[in-house]
């Protein structure tokens, strides 16, 4: 599914000699062999399992070997409610994953606490308070198609990697504001959130359009504060 660009400018040898950039080769291999971390925390995990099973078959899209250890994974699909008790474990698993690593926040709970946003004393109000999130997939839970689309977004992000560009690694992620006070608190107006919890009032306040409109997965890293890479995603 990766379209490698032939950068050979010579019309005579163009069909014979295929030239491309190292970045493209590495990114193509990386994006077509995504190894997610098996990380089901709640009911979203059921949809994640369905995505991996025969009917939706995530293997068709160059992903799918769900790993049992963070050291072999490059994608963390946080599927399910993250509680305060679980939070240190989530952080630790993320830290144990080798770079480059990507995070999908799957479902309302992981994005902003979901139904627990007001009275859930035990729920972390968004996993991006703990780890940097690349793609948000709203839904409660999101359907397997939505997770697949989120995976495609991650693959697009992977194809943007540059091996010499280490800004992503060296910039302190914005999300650490909760752990390191002084950095800006996450902005509720940033519009990353729009799903059907929005219609319930509390969660809708100042966060995106609210209502039932499906917007599909939203990429988190683009243009959100310092340290994010501001380029828009290719459509």
């Amino acid at each position, binding site marked *: 599914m990766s379209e490698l660009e032939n950068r050979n400018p010579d019309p005579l040898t163009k069909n014979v000699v295929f030239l491309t950039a190292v970045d493209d080769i590495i990114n193509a291999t990386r994006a077509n062999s995504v190894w997610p971390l098996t990380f089901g925390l709640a009911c979203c995990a059921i949809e994640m399992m369905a995505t991996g099973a025969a009917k939706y078959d995530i293997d068709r899209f160059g992903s799918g070997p769900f790993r049992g250890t963070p050291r072999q994974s490059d994608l963390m699909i946080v599927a399910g409610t993250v509680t305060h*008790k679980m939070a240190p474990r989530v952080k630790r698993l993320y830290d144990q994953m080798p770079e480059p690593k990507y995070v999908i926040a799957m479902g309302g709970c992981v994005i902003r606490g979901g139904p627990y946003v007001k009275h859930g004393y*035990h729920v972390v109000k968004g996993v991006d*308070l703990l780890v940097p999130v690349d793609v948000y997939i709203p839904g409660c839970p999101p359907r397997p198609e939505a997770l697949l689309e989120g995976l495609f977004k991650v693959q697009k992000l992977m194809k943007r990697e540059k091996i010499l560009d280490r800004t992503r690694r060296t910039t302190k992620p914005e999300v650490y504001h*909760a752990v390191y006070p002084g950095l800006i*608190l996450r902005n*509720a107006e940033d519009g990353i959130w729009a799903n059907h919890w929005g219609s319930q009032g*509390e969660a809708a306040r100042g966060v995106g359009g609210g209502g039932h409109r499906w917007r599909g997965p939203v990429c988190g890293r683009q243009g959100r504060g310092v340290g994010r890479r501001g380029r828009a995603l290719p459509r």
Partner: protein
Amino acid sequence: MVVKAEAWAAVAGLCRDDSRLGFDLLSCITGVDYPEREDGAEIEVIYNLDSIANHHELTVKVKLPRDDPRIASVEEIWRTADWHERETYDLLGVVFEGHHNLVRILCAEDWVGHPLRKDYEPPDSFHGIKNVIY
């Protein structure tokens, strides 16, 4: 059936061992917080007992003072009370005397407060993670 807290240990033993009662299964322990009762603030601990042999069931309520809720553990009588009592302790702060390991079971070990009490206020942050309410 409402039982006084002092009598509960003896009553529980009788419930299990008397052949006419024969409550061999403790199916649930719950607690309810009543901060505004006419005879003072109370926490009620509710035991649901079942008898598999005799096909009957019993609900036992024990009323405890809210400021110092203490009750004898029935862990030795029904082993299943172990985790149930830990949960009631975790969420309501009922101290089960004689329990071998009365620590929190649902919340994190260093959680402050008992969340199912009516006057519980969730913390603004826990271990540096803010409880942002949007």
